[in-house]
C-alpha cells in the first residue's frame, strides 16, 4: 500500500460516482430489478408502549419471520461462525475436542469412579458412552441457548439501537449457531458409532424429524428469555443455577426406562427429555419414535415457539429503549 489512503482518490478532483452505482439505478429506471418493498405499519394508540405495532397473529408467524429475513439471518450466522472458527487459533479442534473431553470425563466418572447402577445396566461402557453422548449433544444445545438468550439483546444492543436491524431474527441466528456446533458433535458421534457398533441403523434418517420440533422449542425459549432478559439481568443469573439442575432432571446420564413409573411421566413431560429419548431411539437403537409421543412433542414445541414469539413481539417495541 503506497499511502494511508488510495492516492488516486486524493488527487482526483472531479466528483465522479462509481460506475456500479449508475448501473444499479439504471436498472431501476428500466423497471428491471427493483421490487418496491412496502412497509405499512398502522399504529394504534397505546399508553403502555407495548402495543405499538399490530401483532402477527398467524400460528406460523415465527417461521415466516425466519423465512422473510433469511438473507440477514444467514449473513449474521456466517459471520458468527467465522468468528468462532477463524477468530480462535484452533477453532475446529475445540469444536471437536470440547464434547469429546466432556464425554470422556462423564463416562469415566459414572462407569468407573461412581459405578452408577444405571451405567452398569447398559452392559458395556461403550454403549453407555454413546447414549450419554446423544444426551449431551441435545442438552448442550439447550444449555448454550439458555445461558446466551437472556443477554442476546444486550449483545447486539449497538446494532439494534443504531440500525433497522430486526431484533426477532437474533433468536434464529442463535439457534442456528448452536445447531451447527451440535452438528459437529453429531459427526463425532457418528464416527464413534461406526467404530464401536458398525453401520448405524436406518432409522437415523428420521433424525431431521426430531430436530424440527426441537428447534421450534428452542426458538420459543430463546425469544422468551431474550425478551425478559432485555429488561432485567436477573434472568441470566437465574439460568446459571437453573441449567446445571436441568442436566440431572433431564435423562442425559440415564434413560427414561431406568426411572420408576411416576417419574417416567415427568421425564416425558420435559420436551428436552423426549427429544433425547427419541434421538437415542433413532440413532442408536434403530427404533422409530412412537407416533403419539411424537405428535405430542410437535404440538408442545409449536406451542412453546408461538408463545415465546408472542411474548417477544409484545415487548419488541420498547426493547430498543431499555437495553
Amino acid at each position, binding site marked *: *500500500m503506497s499511502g494511508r*489512503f*488510495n492516492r488516486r*482518490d*486524493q488527487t*482526483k478532483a472531479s*466528483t465522479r*460516482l*462509481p*460506475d*456500479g*452505482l449508475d448501473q*444499479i*439505478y439504471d436498472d*431501476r429506471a428500466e423497471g428491471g*430489478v*427493483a421490487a*418496491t*418493498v*412496502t*412497509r*405499512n*405499519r*398502522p*399504529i*394504534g*394508540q*397505546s*399508553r*403502555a*408502549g*407495548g*402495543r*405499538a*405495532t399490530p401483532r402477527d397473529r398467524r400460528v406460523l408467524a415465527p417461521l415466516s419471520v425466519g423465512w422473510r429475513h433469511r*438473507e*440477514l439471518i444467514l*449473513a*449474521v450466522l*456466517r*459471520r458468527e461462525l*467465522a468468528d468462532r472458527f477463524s477468530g480462535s487459533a484452533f477453532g475446529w479442534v475445540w469444536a471437536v475436542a470440547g464434547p469429546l473431553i466432556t464425554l470422556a470425563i462423564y463416562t469415566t466418572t459414572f462407569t468407573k469412579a461412581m459405578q452408577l447402577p444405571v451405567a452398569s445396566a447398559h452392559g458395556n461402557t461403550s454403549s453407555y458412552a454413546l447414549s450419554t453422548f446423544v444426551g449431551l449433544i441435545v442438552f448442550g444445545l439447550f444449555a448454550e441457548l439458555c445461558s446466551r438468550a437472556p443477554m442476546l439483546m444486550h449483545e447486539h444492543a449497538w*446494532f*439494534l439501537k*443504531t*440500525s*433497522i436491524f*430486526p431484533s426477532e431474527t437474533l433468536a434464529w441466528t442463535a439457534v442456528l449457531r448452536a445447531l451447527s456446533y451440535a452438528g459437529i458433535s453429531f459427526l463425532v458421534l457418528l464416527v464413534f458409532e461406526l467404530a464401536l457398533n458398525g453401520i448405524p441403523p436406518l432409522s437415523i434418517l428420521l433424525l431431521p424429524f426430531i430436530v424440527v420440533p426441537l428447534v421450534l422449542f428452542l426458538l420459543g425459549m430463546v425469544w422468551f428469555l431474550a425478551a*425478559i432478559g432485555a*429488561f*432485567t*439481568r*436477573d434472568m441470566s443469573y437465574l439460568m446459571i443455577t437453573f441449567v446445571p439442575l436441568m442436566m440431572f432432571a433431564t435423562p442425559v446420564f440415564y434413560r427414561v426406562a431406568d426411572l420408576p413409573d411416576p417419574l417416567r411421566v415427568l421425564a416425558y413431560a420435559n420436551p428436552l427429555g423426549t427429544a433425547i429419548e427419541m434421538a437415542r431411539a433413532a440413532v442408536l437403537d434403530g427404533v422409530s419414535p412412537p407416533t403419539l409421543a411424537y405428535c405430542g412433542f410437535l404440538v408442545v414445541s409449536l406451542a412453546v415457539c408461538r408463545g415465546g414469539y408472542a411474548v417477544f413481539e409484545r*415487548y*419488541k*417495541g*420498547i426493547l*430498543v*429503549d*431499555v437495553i
Partner: protein
Amino acid sequence: MPSSSATRASWSMSSDAAIRCRGLGKAYQLYARRTDQVKQMLFGSFHRFYLEYWVLRDIDLEIRRGESVGVIGRNGAGKTTLLRLLCGISQPTCGELKVAGRVAPILALGAAFDWEMTGRQNVLIGSAVLGLRRSEILRRMPSIAEFAAIGLFIDQPVRLYSAGMRSRLAFAICAHAEADILIVDEALAVGDAAFRRKSLAFMESFRRRGTLIVVTHDMEQIRALCDRVIWVDDGGIRASGGVAEVLRLYDDATEAEEDDGIRFRLDAEARAALSQAAANRRHTKWRSG
C-alpha cells in the same frame, strides 16, 4: 386500549406519499429503579411503574414521493428521534405512521458497525439489514469499495478506522442499497471536502429518483438539496414550508435565543424520576459492573 381502527380504515395512503404520519408521539419511559422495569413487565396492565418523558408529540407530516426535505432544529429538539421513528429503529408511543418503500438510514457517524469485523464483512451485514440479497451485495461490492474509497482498509477491522472512514463506509452501503427513501442524519459532518462533494453529488442524483430526508446544521447543504424544510423544535414541528421562508424564521429565532439549558428542561414529575434514577445508578454501578 383506545383503538384507532376506525380512522385507519378511512385513512388510506395516497399513492404519491412516501411517508405519512398523524399524531405521532414518542415518550421514553423513565424508571426510578431497575426493579420497576420488571414490575412493569409483569404487572404493566394494572399499574404504570414509569414516568413518561415526551420527546416528540403530535407530529403530523406528509412527505411525497420524490420530495427532498431538510430537517433543522437545535440540539435536543427531537430531530434524530423523529428520524429513528421514520426508519423504524424505535417504535412510536402513539399516533399513526406509514412508510412506503425501502428506507436506507445513514445515521450519525457510520453507526451500526461491528468493530471486530472487517469493512467487507460489515458491508455484507449492513446491506442485508437493508434488505439486499447476498448475490446482489457481492455484485455491488467493488462499487461500494470504490465509493467508500478507503483503500485496503476495507479488509481491516472497523476498530482501526477513523470516524471519517466509518462514515464513508456507512454512506457507501446506503448509497448502494437501492433505497426508495434515503435518510441522512449529519453523516457528512466528519467527511473531508472531497468525500463531501462526492456524497452531495450522489444525493443530488438520488433526489431525482427517490425521497430524500436530510438532517443537518449546514444551511448551505439544505439550500442546495431540499425543496422543503421542516423545523423541529421542542418535540413538535414549529414551521414547515419553502426553504427560504423557514430558514429565515429559523435564523431570526436562533439569533434571539440564547444557548442555555432551558430547552432541556423537564417537568417536575420527570425531573424527580430522573434524579432518583441517577441516585440509584450511583449506588448500583459497582454491582452491575
